[in-house]
């Protein structure tokens, strides 16, 4: 073992103090300080924290920090290293249950403590998962593969392509359903990209995450995992789905199309919502209840089509009042080939940037209009300004969500540069990224405080 392992996370002055008194991390220490005596086990320190304190766990189980400037004397009187591991139990095989593959990408779906950062790191093997959520064994036979471990915000083209290929491989090998554990921040980006990259799916591909890490007793991870496994193993919806809590209560999950879902709250459990439509289905540990009638059905063939293309020359511009043309110019000068504009209202930007849009168009940049309002359709015929913009080469993207627009344009430009080809790819929906109609119940943002809403919330948990 290297010397530094004895002082996990300590640096600078606090490291000097530990070395001076010959006390290691996991050592049981007795300290004499100007604030009195302290006894406990020295713990690793998060490397982001300062170098002025030493962390110890006292006998009652609490952690405290000691200011190194108060330490008069310290000695190690014992040593006991903690072994942090979720109990591994052999995931049982049950004849007759569906076979599900779980791909790990990182995120908080199953995790344990990382002392270096003080944050949680994923735990993953089937044995560990079974140790933490034994109910999974009643749902399916499970196999897992950790494809990579990145935080949700670090997912990118390379990971998308790898994931799509892995899905193709697994389907060809005859799996009954696939679950992908994923950080929640960009879960909907991945939902969209997999919809475009993995077409003609014969089995469900279910993306799942958790809003509360599984190191918490009230985590949504265990229930989300059960819902996702149930969906992957038994539902007849052969699409890319996002499976997360419906209400914030532990009641049921919702299955959203990967192309119509969005994370709508930074921390709520029920953060994922289908936008402009209803979710595909509801799910409990007992089974899946479809909400929509028309979805792609499960098949026995293995004829999945993997289209692992992605251009990294696409960007998004979120319009704001007072935007200057140089912003667009800079993007074009940097070599970007596609821009998703996120416009106001029905799809507008101000006249001041028109010249820049003309220049971009002339440079062959593909531009599509999406909406800051999130809900609704781009409509560029209503006002002259909209018509002007279309004349300058901006193409309205219907009710495609901005993030989905970005993903789709990246995917399209990964295949072709031809404006007509790109336009055809962009405007031909693969799975409802643009819908022909918005149902009345596709937009429900209720306002708290209104008596009828309060009444509804009190009677029906949301």
């Amino acid at each position, binding site marked *: 073992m290297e010397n530094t392992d004895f002082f996990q996370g300590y640096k600078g002055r606090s490291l000097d103090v530990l070395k001076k008194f010959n006390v290691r991390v996991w050592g049981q220490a007795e300290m004499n300080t100007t*604030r009195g005596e302290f006894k406990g086990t020295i713990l690793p320190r998060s490397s982001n924290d300062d170098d002025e304190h030493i962390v110890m766990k006292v006998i*009652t*189980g609490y952690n405290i920090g000691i200011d190194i400037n108060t330490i008069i004397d310290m000695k190690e009187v014992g040593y006991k290293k903690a072994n942090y591991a979720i109990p591994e139990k052999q995931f049982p095989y049950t004849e007759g249950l569906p076979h599900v593959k779980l791909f790990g990408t990182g995120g908080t779906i199953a995790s344990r403590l990382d002392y270096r950062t003080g*944050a949680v790191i994923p735990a993953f093997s089937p044995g560990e998962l079974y140790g933490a*959520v034994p109910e999974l064994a009643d749902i399916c036979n499970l196999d897992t593969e950790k494809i990579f471990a990145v935080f949700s915000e670090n997912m990118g083209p390379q990971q998308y392509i790898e994931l799509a290929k892995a899905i193709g491989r697994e389907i060809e090998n005859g799996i009954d359903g696939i679950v992908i554990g994923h950080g929640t921040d960009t879960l909907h980006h991945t939902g969209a990209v997999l919809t475009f990259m993995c077409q003609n799916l014969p089995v469900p591909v279910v993306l799942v995450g958790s809003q509360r890490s599984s*190191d918490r007793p009230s985590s949504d991870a265990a229930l989300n995992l059960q819902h996702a496994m149930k969906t992957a193993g038994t539902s007849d919806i052969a699409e890319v789905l996002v499976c997360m809590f419906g209400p914030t209560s532990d009641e049921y999950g919702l299955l959203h199309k990967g192309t119509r879902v969005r994370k709508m709250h930074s921390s709520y459990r029920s953060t994922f919502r289908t936008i402009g439509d209803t979710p595909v289905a509801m799910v409990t540990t007992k089974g899946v209840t479809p909400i929509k009638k028309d979805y792609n059905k499960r098949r026995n063939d293995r004829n999945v089509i993997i289209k692992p293309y992605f251009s990294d020359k696409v960007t998004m511009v979120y319009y704001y009042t007072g935007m200057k043309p140089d912003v667009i110019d800079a993007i074009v000068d940097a070599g970007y080939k596609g821009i998703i504009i996120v416009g106001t209202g029905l799809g507008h930007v101000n006249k001041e940037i028109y010249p820049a849009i003309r220049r971009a168009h002339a440079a062959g940049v593909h531009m599509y209009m999406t909406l800051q309002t999130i809900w609704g359709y781009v409509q560029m015929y209503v006002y002259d300004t909209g018509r002007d913009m279309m004349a300058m080469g901006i193409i309205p993207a219907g009710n495609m969500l901005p993030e989905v627009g970005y993903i789709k344009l990246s995917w399209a430009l990964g295949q072709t540069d031809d404006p007509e080809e790109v336009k055809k790819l962009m405007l031909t929906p693969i799975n409802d990224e643009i819908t022909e109609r918005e149902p009345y119940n596709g937009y429900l943002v209720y306002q708290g405080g209104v008596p009828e809403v309060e009444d509804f*919330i009190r009677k029906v948990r949301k």
Partner: protein
Amino acid sequence: MKNQFDPYSNYLATMKKIGYVPRKEATQDDYNRIGFMSGLEVHQQLLTKKKLFCHCPAGIFHGDDEYDAEVIRHMRPTLSELGEYDGTALMEFKTKKEIVYRINNENACTYEVDDTPPFLINREALDIALEITILSKFNVVGEVHITRKQYLDGSIPTGFQRTAILGVEGEIQLKNKVVRLIQLSIEEDSCREISDIGHRRIYKTDRLGMPLIETVTYPDMVNPDEVKEACDYIRFLNRSTGKVRTGMGAGREDVNVSCKGGTRVEIKGVAHTNWIPELTHNECYRQWSLLRMKDELLNRVKDIDAWKIEYAYLDLNEFTNNYPAIKYAKDNGYKILAVNLKDFKGILSWFNQPDIMFAQEISDRLKVIACIEKPNMIHSEMKEQVLTEADYSVIKKHLSFNDEKDAIIVFWGPEADIACALETIEERCKMAFQCVPNETRKSFENGTTIFERVLPGADRMYPDTDSMPIPLTKEHIDNLGKNIPDDISDRLAQFIAWGIPEDTYHYLLSKNLFPYIKQAIESGADPKKAGVLFGHNLKFVEGHYNQAKGFTYARIVEMIQFCLKNNFQSPLGEMMLPEVYQYPEKDFESVLKTINFKKYSKEDLISKIKVLSSEFDKEARVNTPKNKTDWVMGKIRPLAIGNINLSELKSLVENSIK
């Protein structure tokens, strides 16, 4: 059953056998004999505007049905930081409870239901807590680390309480000894339970997240009265800062008790310190009794590992007992089972607590762990027999019951809970061979307790990954240390020095009146009289009049200063007090009018005495000097009060009638 065995006589006999002594008769020798040992965890809410980790207002409460929304959660055990599952955690998970939280928008936000991460800790609360840490002579930590303490009973929606140690190793000075303190922590308060029936437990979230401190003592107390004394001391100390909440539920304590050879058992949520002596006394004897019962069982059963329960489902056509609870069970389609406890004869009726037999420990666990509501069982050793001869013959068909040696339990419940119930019965019986189970118990006013849950260990602590450590600089600690009040033991010594009667101390400290008395004395008041005014008169007024909203104790000091300035004499203050208490806005002159006080000079009084004296001479039938003095005093006293010292008045009267 035809045998001669009478369960109640057995209860009495075992009570005698273990040497139970009622608390009123118990001496220190009795407590030494059974090895009484007790420690405290004293909780105190802090007086802050907002909650500890969010910006909801603190101290706004609502009724059980005043809620805007409900949220449902289930709790799953997770690993502790040291990689182990906690015992309670696993037990709570076994119970598979559905937890419902009622949320009122006025006092709870998305933080309380764990849909928003914590905000930075409330510095107002942290500083109050630090002040008390310094006051309790703790070693103050260098850096505060927020820790998660798991609670899977649902009392906190996250499944853990955010808590942090501020100091370790403190002490308090009681009358006759020093009690050592283990630690002081700041933590968020939990939900209040509305109901817990079957598999559904309902909480409200108004109290959740309010700042609280917990002071933990070493188990240094060796008799029940000492526990109460220590508890009062800590509560008074907390109150002496004037920055803590008072009233129902603002201070609560958990009391840890064990006997020689016993186990640390935690009596939770004791609402009144007056309950402590009886509760700790009974708990210590309960443990003592369980240990003697264990000896008895070990005498009877050689291979305790092989001991297990024997059970059978009863055919409802055969089993015709018409006990109301059994009828209820039948009507609800419950399963009814008989369980044979080999060699347990006389154990179910073994003395446990006053008027409670051992069988209750099994029934308690059936309720808590298997979620079967009480009454959930009958047995062969009830005070009033419920099982009939016919029942026994049915049971004997299925079980090898030997009525000379064994005991029978008949219990019922929904089919889904039966497996857990059987496990629970066997588990509790097997523990009877081993030790006193590690558990927390709920307290009742009559001094008895019932099982609440398995006592959690240190394994349930986990660093809070949502919070950063908070350094405590020397400057900050020194600044806080400058303004702390005097120690309670110093205040007691001062009361004695001032000659204030001892029977006022408890009241004066519990209301934190020391600073006001001190101020009154500094203004020139007589120490003893000031003490009596606050300790006796104010106490009486508080018990008999309604306090006005704007009333503060400082108003009494102003009243005393007013009297001193006008050279009014006692007991005028005593007479003004009810008025001031009810109408603190009223100026003191108006108060004097209300109580019909008029100013008289000494000369005025002397002339009035003379008039009265001649009146008495005319009217009196028996005119002795004593009668005359008494009569005149009676007439003049109401007029004289406040204007002249009453002993001086008496000598005036005596002199003028000579």
